[in-house]
């Protein structure tokens, strides 16, 4: 049989088609000269995506640059952005990066420098502690998109019914929780608190670390030595464990409670107090999202702790960031986005629509304060906020932290064993990587 040109041509066509199946999609030609009129921005599902859907319209009007948002499932986000950044994909021009991964991604050389993107004038408007988080090895690679901290939300009516007041320290918090726990007005079981105790997406870390910091504990000392197993750290974890296993003031299914479930417990009126993100304010305190409880809910600073005669405060802040992947082919457009989001104009839109930018001017803007009544305490809360150690080894350290905390809450190990194990494992990693001898 003679090999026909048709057969050869068909084979070549199929080969080319199989290669094109691996292509990551249609790519615009790199811009030459003027800023591109379009960029692609990636963000995970949730309030940040909802916010961006609104904020981008203002950006597009003011700059003439359109944005396509690539919305990615929250639970798969870390794996997705790691793969995209490491592979040098051109898919995105701006990425909403989780703060815990920033150092690792910067060290891997996957981020575009923002060194000359934000003007000195705008830099002077940014919250210094937050702005510094975007630096790696002396260069700016990220703009903190959200400087979330945590608040103490409480049911004013339930506390008042029992003659209680919002807790100012953890002793009062426990007393309140014990009195609030029991059969509720509808016969349903009420709880004095609800928290996150699971390991999925480091869930327990985002709740417990508030208690940890508010007890006056720290992760590392100034020499990068682990000190979370200090008396304060162990006491904080023991308190957290006892809320569930000794006092039974939290629901039994806390291991399965995530951010949304925590809100749902509060929205359904089953919980009297909760430590939750500032971003939950629109969820818990607006009629649209919490019709049963919004007008009965108050918010204030996370309770403090009396430590050696001193009253200490603390809460966890996270610093998710806007970054530009090094492989982006529309850097000029991405730079324009970063510049705008850093400015008072962009930060204002971001704030009005529910998030917490780091341009300090928005916290004094009357229009913003009207839309965000929670900002009345935001400035004060920010003073006490602390972040998880920002190191390239962050993901590994966080995994060890989370795993052992969860084991302690489940009763598999004691609080002391958990903290000692964490300290020992962190020490191995930090010594190996040369942080100390």
């Amino acid at each position, binding site marked *: *049989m*003679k*090999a026909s040109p048709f*057969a*050869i041509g068909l*084979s*070549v066509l*199929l*080969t080319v*088609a*199989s*290669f094109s199946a*691996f292509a990551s999609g249609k790519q615009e030609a790199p811009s030459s000269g003027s800023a591109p009129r379009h960029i692609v921005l990636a963000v995970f599902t949730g309030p940040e995506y909802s916010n961006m859907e609104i904020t981008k319209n203002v950006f597009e009007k003011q700059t003439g640059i359109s944005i396509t948002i690539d919305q990615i499932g929250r*639970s798969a986000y*870390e*794996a997705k952005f*790691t793969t995209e950044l*490491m592979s040098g994909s051109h898919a995105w021009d701006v990425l909403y990066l989780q703060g815990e991964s920033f150092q*690792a*991604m910067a*060290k*891997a*050389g*996957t981020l575009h420098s923002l060194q000359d993107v934000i003007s000195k004038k705008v830099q002077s408007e940014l919250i210094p502690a937050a702005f510094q988080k975007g630096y790696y090895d002396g260069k700016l690679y990220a703009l903190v998109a959200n400087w979330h901290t945590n608040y103490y939300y409480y049911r004013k009516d339930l506390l008042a019914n029992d003659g209680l007041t919002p807790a100012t320290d953890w002793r009062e918090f426990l007393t309140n929780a014990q009195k609030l726990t029991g059969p509720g007005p509808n016969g349903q079981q009420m709880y004095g608190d609800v928290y996150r*105790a*699971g*390991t*999925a*997406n*480091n869930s327990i870390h985002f709740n417990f670390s508030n208690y940890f910091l508010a007890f006056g504990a720290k992760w590392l000392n100034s020499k990068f030595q682990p000190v979370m197993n200090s008396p304060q750290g162990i006491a904080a974890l023991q308190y957290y464990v006892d809320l569930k296993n000794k006092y039974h003031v939290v*629901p*039994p*299914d*806390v*291991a*399965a*409670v995530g951010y949304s*479930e925590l809100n*749902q*417990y509060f929205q*359904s009126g*089953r919980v009297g107090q909760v430590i939750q993100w500032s971003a939950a304010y629109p969820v818990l305190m607006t009629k649209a999202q919490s019709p049963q409880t919004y007008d009965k809910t108050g918010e204030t600073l996370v309770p403090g702790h009396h430590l050696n005669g001193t009253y200490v405060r603390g809460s966890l802040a996270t610093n998710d960031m806007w970054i530009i992947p090094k492989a982006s082919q529309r850097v000029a457009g991405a730079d324009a986005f970063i510049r705008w989001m850093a400015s008072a104009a962009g930060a204002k839109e971001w704030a009005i629509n529910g998030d917490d930018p780091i341009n300090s001017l928005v916290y004094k803007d009357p229009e913003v304060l009207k839309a965000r009544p929670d900002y009345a305490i935001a400035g004060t809360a920010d003073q006490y906020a602390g972040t998880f150690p920002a190191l*390239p*080894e962050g*993901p*590994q350290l*966080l*995994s*060890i932290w989370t*795993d052992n905390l*969860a*084991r302690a809450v*489940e009763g*598999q190990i004691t609080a002391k064993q958990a903290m000692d194990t964490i300290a020992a494992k962190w020490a191995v990693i930090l010594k190996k990587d040369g942080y100390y001898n």
Partner: protein
Amino acid sequence: MIGRATRRRRLTPYYFAAPAVIYLFGMWIYPLIYSVNLSLHQTEIYQLMTGGSFVGLGNFGELFQYNRFWNSLRVTGILTGVCVGTEFLLGLGLAILLNTAIVARRVFRAIAIIPLMLTPVVLGTDFKIMFNYLYGVVNWALTTVGLQPVQWLSNSFWAMVSVMITEIWNQSSFVALILLAGLQSIPTELYESAFVDGANNFRIFWSIRLPLILPMIFVAVFWRTIAVFRIFDVPYIVTSGGPVFSTEALSLLVNDIGYQAGQMGLAAALSLIMIVAMIAFALIYNRFFRFENE
């Protein structure tokens, strides 16, 4: 000497096979080689581009000393055994039912494959909501009849049960379809002869149906064992491997080590262990359950 026409004729099959070979190389062989190389290095996530330090079999040694590895192996073993066994029994029952001449049999057959239509993410999300302690419909049903609510997602035992229920509900139809095909291929004359000889239903099932569908059972059990061994989506969505790793199957541990903890070399080593285990299972299974054509 080979003529040009002959040479061209001999090369034609290779032209047609080229796309598949390229695909195979690009999507399977090269990643496998890359994964083997990665497993021999201690590579943090930020070292993927630059490469980590060579540690030989060090990653494998570290895994064998890692408690969570043995826990995940145990979880995976239990999931595989219980899910495959239950799916087989339910699938066989369903297949027999669908093979029976009942009214609206075609409708029941269509309904029976509905679980297979759901994607794992949708399936997992639905069951996660149904098993929710506070507002899930399952606990609502339990409390309605006077029983206590169950911590389906936050108790180690019940979380495993939740994952199993979700997976079994989804895949029993798959087993049923395979076995149904086998049942339908049995000549009806065999049943008639058996009835004439005085055999009852149980005897017919045990001596005729079961032996004749054994090859189908072999196929169904084999594929389901491989599928459940490498299960990821259902436990990831329903319980995320919790509470405290009680439902963390091996695939979830790979994901956690690789993407959460950033230990890519270790994750690659665990992936290879899984591959070797599945290959070993396939070889042993084929060796002991081979059916020769009569």
